[in-house]
């Protein structure tokens, strides 16, 4: 029963990782851009939420109403003003520019908020839980987070395959030149994709910050978790990304159970194991 508990916690954490991954996977899918600063944007969203909560005195979940559009706006502006100029055959420019952004965001947060670790207070919901059996209880907050993650991924899936915007995303992803011929403004489509990505990042950042302490330096590790979830799940498959996040969360939970020092290592080893055995991921997108 103790193990069941561990696995349930791992699955619930996996939802959060899947959200880190969804934003990463989205922009890679649409414009072949890997955002090295992705994790730092997660942390930036957490600090924005902190400021909103302190100035308006609202609940963390309510702060999303401000933080999500704000991050979306930042994403749009960043893509239009800076990142669109880095896209092309050469993979170094986007990588270097987002690496530079990562250093800028981390040190900017350090200047403004110091290296102290912070946390968003959500009140009574933080400790509420349901007792399912003698040794198995599920926290209300982790469950809520998981439900939000599933909803976000379901929403992205629907947006991709059911809406005009999704069609534009898929078209530019397949062939940007033809998409432009068909009347799409690629710069605008890419900027919308980045806005959406950072909107998801904002939700993930706030949920992370409610559940765990954060400081300006934790971004890169979140990028790595998101990346691992993408590769484990298989490129180009959003539900696979959720599965990848869950595999990673469970592996980390099992590792932590064996020895606290093994938590992160177990997650990385699960990733390397998948890479060795099934480099296309567990659930690669079916072509055609």
């Amino acid at each position, binding site marked *: 029963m103790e193990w069941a508990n561990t696995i349930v916690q791992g699955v619930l954490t996996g939802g959060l990782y899947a959200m880190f991954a969804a934003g990463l996977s989205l922009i*890679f899918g649409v414009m*072949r*851009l*890997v955002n*090295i600063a992705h994790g730092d944007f997660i942390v930036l969203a957490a600090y924005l939420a902190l400021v909103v909560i302190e100035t308006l005195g609202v609940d963390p979940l309510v702060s999303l109403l401000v933080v999500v559009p704000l991050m979306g706006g930042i994403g749009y502006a960043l893509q239009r003003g*800076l990142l669109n*100029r*880095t896209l092309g055959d050469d*993979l*170094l*420019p*986007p*990588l*270097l*520019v987002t*690496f*530079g*952004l*990562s*250093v*800028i965001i981390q*040190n*900017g947060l*350090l*200047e403004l908020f110091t290296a102290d670790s912070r946390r968003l207070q959500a009140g009574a919901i933080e400790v509420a839980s349901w007792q399912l059996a003698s040794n198995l209880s599920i926290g209300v907050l982790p469950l809520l987070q998981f439900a939000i993650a599933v909803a976000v991924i379901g929403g992205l899936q629907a947006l991709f395959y059911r809406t005009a915007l999704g069609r534009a995303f898929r078209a530019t992803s397949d062939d940007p030149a033809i998409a432009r011929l068909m009347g799409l403004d690629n710069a605008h489509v890419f900027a919308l994709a980045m806005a959406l990505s950072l909107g998801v990042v904002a939700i993930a950042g706030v949920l992370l910050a409610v559940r765990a302490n954060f400081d300006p330096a934790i971004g*890169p*590790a979140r*990028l*790595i978790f998101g*990346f*691992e979830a993408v*590769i484990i799940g298989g490129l180009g498959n959003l539900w696979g990304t959720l599965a990848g996040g869950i595999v990673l969360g469970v592996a980390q939970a099992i590792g932590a159970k064996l020895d606290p*020092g093994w938590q*992160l*290592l177990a997650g*990385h*080893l699960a*990733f*390397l194991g998948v*890479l*060795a055995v099934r*480099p296309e991921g567990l659930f690669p997108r079916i072509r055609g």
Partner: protein
Amino acid sequence: MSQPAVQVRFADRRSAISLAAFAALLVALAAAPVWAGRDDLRLLGEIYAYVALASLWNLLAGYAGLVSVGQQAYVGLGGYMLFGLTILAGISPLWAIPAAGLIGALAAVPVAALVFRLRGHYFAIGTWVVAEVFRLLASQASALGGGSGTSLPATIVIAIAPTRAMREFVVYWIALALAVAILGLILWLLRSRYGLALTAIRDNELAASSNGVDVGRVKLVVYVFTACGTAMVGALIFLQKLRISPDAAFNVNDWTAFVIFITVIGGIGRLEGPIVGTIVFFALRQTLADRGALYLMMLGAVAIAVMLKAPKGIWGLVAARLDWQIFPLQRRVVRLPGSASIRNKGEAT
């Protein structure tokens, strides 16, 4: 059989002059213990380490197209091998540096087998995961202090040289020798058949491959060579510091972000670029280091600006204006004296 009328040469008069100037500079630098103070020696030693790291990363990313953000894996591995081999196996620190390089090369083979499965950007982050695995394993190494790290014991430090001044000189000379050796090896590699293949891959991977270059093999050779060099530099860096911890040894900012910024600012895909970049980096650091986080933000902004406005870096601008190279690398076709005229291609070869 007619004599070939043309020949491919690397050096011309200007590169001979600049190479002679470079050699004179090296002599002056080797004599630095005579004319420089302790702090200057330490700074120069650090500069050599960054020149070597950036030159290796330049070879990897600028020529072989392997954009790794996980080279801290090998810096840290080299550092930990220095400490492990000297403390646990009793090997002298000076021998531990080449041994660390060998171990770095051996470790790179299975790592390459895994990360080479990832393409482009995903390769980059995959190398970072490997570095994280190395860091976490190092923090499990309780014999070397676990997560909080350890210092090099006094007995081992004294084994380098009996007096502190002499020790500092020895470490300084090793740093200079290692940087020069790495630059020399890269120059040699680039002038060999591999260099031709690498330049072809840099310019167009598909075209290189269709002209018979075994792209996968060339990339593997470069990856393993770079790992070997980077691990040796890592061992050297922690011989300079005399203290190691997992967070310092596998630091992505110190050993990868700065190295990438240096290479891009100086000029990627050119041997001179990392040297110019290192000089700029240290000049900025010496004037702005007390600004801490603001300095790092500025460095990031400068690197972004250079990437967008002058993607070939400072040396790229210089070389484009003056057609000048310090290191004789560019292949030039020259007419041999005495030949009547350049014959057509079929006869010339």
